């Protein structure tokens, strides 16, 4: 009884709560200034700060700030589309050249590059870091380097050094590739390709996951595991455009509804993807709405089918399910943060065929196709999804849509490890929720991994539809080696068309992220690759470096305001 009364009482108080509004305001500075600590949180925890290991989204929040690479992405600016931040620009390398045949790539490093400890960054450190990734059995990144000559030999332990990575002098580094590869530069922008000094790595050993050698704009101050990670601006970083904040603090294991309450109280500076009720609440508050930021991210969601097993081995069944699902409904259920999909490539992605419209919602056509395929009364099948409010809500909506055409699904909720094991297995569930987020902003990061037959394994298959089409395989390989952008785009357009017709997924939607910022957080936008990258962000504080309470904001310039 006490429980219910307490809950009712709190809701009663809440109903009378005045409208919510920011407690602090921007001080009104027009140019970026240094200072302040930016605090944000996550419901999960950081796994590792070793860039050769960190592959989960949360760890990447930190490695994005700690490490710099030869090339990197141009800044994502507020209001800009996600695509703007997917252009590569020079970072630790000041320039690079590609040979005529497209197989030799030579980088020239900037002068006077330093790690956070003051030691110089030299070309040999890149070679050491990449060879370390190839040698490490537990690094998920080794396979990304296979286009490099000699990489396979190091990976299998047949060679100590990778013949295709050559150090010409302290400031010149050369890569030799076995084949032309249009996406190789993107791979070098991933954080595992950051430089690492041999002595540091060998001295630290496994402790490197807690003692990163920072080459980026921030360095690690402390990591109380499961509680918080604190970063501080690195004194030796070369790039004046990045590193305005004195400190970046990530609080770990903060539940998402608590995150929103902490944000409203001003204990956090950014609130990422508030859960649906919180999102609707903030959206209903006029004072908060201008501070909500929507970013189209490079991802795809839907339902994957195992195309080797009945009933999904019949393309008519797969198309029928695509017609049966109402994608507009999904967009409503996700409060307008989703856009219906016709394939895996998200809007703004190179090689996407914007002329293809998503499968329309047409239950009549779905029933006709099912009848044609020999399922006049539909069929019953198990549907695997993840645990959580949102997957459950979407699964219930899917269940209702499919029931309309006679397909009866039993929803099975799985924890993440169980889900991954189940859907990657040949004899796992035939139909399940699926999603994909890019490693780098190139179509090869989507179609190569999810639909090339090379990625099929019996267990933990990355190609978890087990879709094998020699035509698609051929097009994928040709597109990868094609350096002419027009010809390359044409190949991806063809792949898009075939995948749309073959429908190995129920193509669902692409999801935008919503973030709410305190009014004094400036020059920040969610990043399409790193998701949360505060390298360019600054805090609009007063001259003493304090936040300005909302009531004190006047029209007078900051310096003239009475104190």
């Amino acid at each position: 009884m006490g429980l219910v009364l307490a809950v009712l009482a709190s809701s009663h108080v809440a109903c009378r709560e005045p409208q919510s509004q920011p407690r602090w305001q921007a001080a009104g500075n027009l140019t970026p200034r240094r200072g302040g600590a930016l605090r944000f949180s996550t419901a999960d925890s950081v796994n590792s700060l070793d860039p050769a290991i960190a592959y989960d989204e949360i760890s990447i929040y930190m490695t994005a700030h700690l490490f710099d690479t030869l090339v990197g992405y141009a800044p994502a600016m507020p209001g800009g589309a996600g695509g703007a931040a997917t252009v590569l620009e020079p970072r630790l390398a000041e320039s690079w050249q590609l040979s005529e045949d497209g197989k030799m790539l030579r980088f020239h490093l900037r002068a006077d590059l330093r790690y956070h400890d003051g030691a110089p960054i030299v070309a040999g450190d890149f070679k050491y870091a990449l060879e370390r990734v190839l040698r490490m059995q537990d690094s998920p990144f080794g396979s990304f380097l296979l286009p490099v000559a000699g990489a396979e030999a190091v990976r299998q332990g047949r060679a100590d050094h990778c013949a295709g990575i050559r150090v010409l002098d302290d400031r010149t580094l050369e890569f030799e590739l076995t084949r032309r590869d249009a996406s190789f530069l993107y791979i070098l922008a991933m954080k595992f390709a950051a430089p690492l000094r041999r002595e540091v790595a060998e001295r630290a050993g496994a402790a490197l996951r807690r003692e990163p050698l920072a080459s980026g704009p921030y360095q690690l101050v402390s990591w109380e595991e499961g509680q918080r990670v604190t970063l501080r601006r690195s004194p030796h970083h070369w790039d004046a455009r990045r590193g305005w904040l004195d400190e970046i603090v990530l609080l770990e294991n903060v539940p998402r509804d608590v995150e929103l309450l902490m944000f409203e109280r001003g204990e956090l500076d950014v609130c990422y993807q508030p859960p649906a009720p919180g999102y609707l609440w903030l959206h209903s508050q006029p004072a908060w709405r201008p501070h909500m930021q929507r970013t189209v991210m490079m991802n795809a969601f839907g339902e994957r089918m195992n195309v080797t097993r009945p009933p999904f081995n019949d393309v008519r069944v797969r198309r029928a399910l695509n017609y049966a699902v109402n994608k507009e409904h999904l967009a409503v259920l996700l409060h307008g943060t989703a856009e219906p999909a016709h394939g895996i490539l998200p809007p703004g992605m190179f090689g996407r065929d914007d002329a293809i419209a998503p499968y329309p919602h047409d239950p009549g056509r779905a029933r006709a196709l099912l009848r044609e395929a020999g399922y006049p009364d539909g069929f019953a099948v198990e549907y695997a999804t993840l645990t959580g409010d949102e997957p459950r809500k979407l699964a219930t909506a899917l269940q209702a849509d499919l029931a309309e055409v006679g397909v009866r699904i039993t929803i099975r909720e799985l924890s993440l490890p169980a889900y991954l094991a189940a859907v990657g297995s040949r004899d796992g569930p035939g139909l399940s929720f699926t999603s994909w987020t890019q490693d780098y902003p190139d179509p090869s990061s989507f179609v190569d991994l999810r639909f090339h037959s090379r990625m099929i394994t019996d267990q933990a298959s990355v190609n978890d539809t087990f879709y094998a089409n020699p035509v698609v395989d051929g097009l994928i390989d040709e597109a990868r080696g094609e350096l002419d952008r027009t010809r390359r785009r044409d190949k991806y357009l063809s792949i898009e068309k075939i995948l749309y017709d073959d429908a190995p997924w129920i193509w669902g939607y692409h999801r935008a992220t919503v973030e709410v910022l305190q009014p004094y957080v400036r020059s920040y936008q969610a990043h399409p690759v790193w998701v949360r990258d505060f390298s360019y962000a600054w805090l609009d504080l007063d001259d003493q470096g304090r936040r300005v309470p909302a009531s004190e904001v006047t029209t007078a310039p900051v310096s003239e305001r009475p104190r």
Partner: protein
Amino acid sequence: MRDAPPALPRRQKTPALAIGLGVLGIMTVCMILVPALRPPPDAVNIDGGLASTGAPLPPSWRAPLGTDELGRDVAARVFAGLRMSLVISVLAAALSLVIGLAVGLVAGLANRMAPWLDRLLSRAIDVTLALPVMLLAILAAAAVRAAAVDGQPPTRGGAMITLALLMSLIGWPTIARVTRARALVLARSEMVHAARALGATPLGILWRHVLPNTLDVISVLATVTVAQMVMAEVSMSFLGLGAPAPAASLGRMVFEGRVHYRTAPWLLLAPGLTIVLAVSTFHLINVGLRRRYAEAR
């Protein structure tokens, strides 16, 4: 001058029993009528049941208690949930009564004939009362959730029976203790002495003389146990025990509605107030019954 003997306050004539039974009647009618008049409680309705932003709709003529985040009718779900709560609670209360009565009567009568049996049963009562039931329920909820997550989800009926069994664990010891106390008194009564002198068997004494004389206590206990069971059922389904997801359950509606307290308070208030009403009703009946027995004495 001596004070007048304290008269029974007029308030005692308040027809608690009548009000309680009346409200119970109305709830029963609603539980039959609402599902017939409203859309099915599990029917997802995105086109008509959600705002364009995807927000649940507030109460209106079309949906008297509003809609939830899937556009489902909250009125239909509240009464479907109430029906499920009451079925489980009455089942659990009945189980508690059967166990509690049997243990209490046997222990009470055994007090003189076989003291070891009384001591054994009394200790069993004490041990059960000492169990931290809510903590055990949370443990059970975690176990059931883990089983449902990576294995097969429980069926609706199976989950309901499991829950009723778990809940009867809470109910029986109190009933047994009260019944034992009454049986102890009755066992020493002249009526029982006379029956024994006339050669009645212990079972016959229990059935013909002791049980009928505990019925007043039992009926009072039964109503309070149902109220207690409603609270227990709601708390446990709040924790995630009970019938699996699409099925409506008051406790889970409170659980799922609590996060909407600022934008859609009806998702919390509708099931919450229904729980308060249901529990109060059984308490009213309980108060009414107690008064009636007090007056009769």
